[in-house]
């Protein structure tokens, strides 16, 4: 049994948990950054910038995730290769699109054909992070925009009365106070993001769902030292426990964060804390 659980395949399975956690660890701050930038742009007084921010939030929020994942990654990959092709192989005369084929010169391939497999995997993973960040960034942008508008107007008025510039009032008064309004929305997004990680497989990254399915599939004695029937139920049960445990831990952390951010705020939570103290 212990031998079975430590086969190369199982080690890849365990490693894929790391992949998922890494994806979350990288994607969450990056999408928060995208969202913040989007919200700031949407609130900008410069009209084109405001359109850009609003457009980003509206369009990406309106497109189904799966369609976005299928379309955007291919478009991005081919776009990068097309640009590289223009730079590195200016003398190339053959058309890039030949029927169904997308052909660029060898040195424009991303990553290069000669690169070891792990580079291909890192590249695929980065595309995945970027795509997740753009999708969830749009939702985060909407949440943050709402949060910024929820900070009582009196706070900003007071800041202006003290002679703060628009920029100072934004960074010193608005941003520190908006998080308590943003947190419920952001925590929802975090939960959805955790559960959206199996989309990774759509992008060619071998995630936990891929390995669970592969390991759970029935195996015949000719092809493995450990033949077994259909064990997918048990592997998926393990995934269920993993996701439940992970979201539970997240909930605990988010609850503590809410408590902390409520401190001194003119909200029901903040008021309750003040009375208890």
């Amino acid at each position: 049994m212990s031998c079975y659980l430590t086969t190369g395949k199982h080690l890849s399975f365990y490693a894929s948990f790391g992949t998922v956690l890494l994806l979350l660890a990288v994607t969450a701050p990056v999408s928060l950054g995208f969202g913040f930038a989007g919200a700031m742009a949407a609130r900008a007084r410069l009209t084109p910038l405001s359109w850009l921010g609003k457009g980003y939030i509206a369009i990406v929020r309106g497109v189904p995730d799966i369609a976005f994942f299928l379309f955007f990654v291919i478009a991005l990959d081919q776009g990068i290769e097309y640009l590289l092709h223009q730079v590195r192989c200016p003398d190339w005369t053959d058309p890039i699109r030949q029927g169904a084929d997308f052909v660029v010169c060898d040195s424009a391939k991303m990553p290069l054909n000669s690169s070891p497999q792990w580079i291909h995997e890192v590249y695929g993973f980065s595309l995945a992070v970027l795509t997740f960040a753009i999708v969830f960034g749009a939702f985060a942008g909407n949440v943050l925009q709402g949060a910024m508008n929820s900070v009582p107007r009196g706070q900003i008025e007071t800041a202006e009365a003290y002679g703060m510039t628009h920029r100072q009032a934004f960074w010193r008064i608005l941003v520190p106070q908006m998080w308590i309004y943003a947190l419920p929305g952001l925590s929802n997004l975090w939960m959805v993001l955790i559960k959206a990680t199996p989309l990774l497989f759509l992008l060619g990254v071998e995630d936990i769902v891929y390995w669970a399915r592969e390991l759970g599939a029935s195996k015949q004695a000719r092809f493995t030292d450990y033949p077994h029937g259909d064990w997918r139920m048990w592997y998926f049960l393990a995934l269920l426990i993993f996701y439940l445990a992970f979201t539970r831990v997240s909930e605990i952390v988010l609850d503590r964060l809410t408590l902390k951010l409520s401190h001194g705020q003119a909200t029901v939570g903040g008021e309750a804390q003040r009375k208890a103290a």
Partner: protein
Amino acid sequence: MKNLILSTAALALTAGIASADVVRLGTEGAYPPYNFLNDAGEVDGFERELGDELCKRAELKCEWVTNDWDSIIPNLTSGNYDAIIAGMSITEERAEVVDFTQGYTQPSPSAYAALAEGLDVNTAVVSAQSSTIQAAHVASTGATLVEFPTPDETVAAVKSGEVDAVLSDKDYLNPIVAEGGLVFLGDVYLGGGIGMAFRQSDDELRGKFDAAIASMKADGSLNALLAKWEIEGQF
């Protein structure tokens, strides 16, 4: 400065040569005995040994990549790998999008398998892997087709009673039926043998593999491999 340009050019040139030598082979990794992941998580099976031998004969450095069956052709044409070697039967529909080498197996039988004998496969509910010749065949009969993304799921559906029978390559079903539980209902001959698929713009590479397959047929080493993995039909 001149030196710098020269050395960059030299580097770019060698990089070009090096990259031309690596051929990425795309496979599914879920279709024993053709291709599957062994306990160590590496690609194994008939096509692994065949592909390695072909690359040796064509003097190419090859790297194995696994890809979902459903997107295996689009990912070839968009250039994620250079060849498909995944138990893919040569059919006219596929040949419109990709170019095949000569077959490296004989046109082999597909077989129906079910829990018990005496089932009319032309009226039953039959499972097959999506985008396969078997799925196309079931759809062309009077049977109800239920498609699954992986071969394993097509068999699991029979065992769980979700469908009445499965239609798949007989070579794939043989070890499963041998272990008990399922019985064969009959064979149908579909497709024109299994070949490697290449981008239509990649004739040169296809030629190299085609020649290597021909040389393996000529010296009998292909027959030895087919026999070793118990795949029906010899050349």
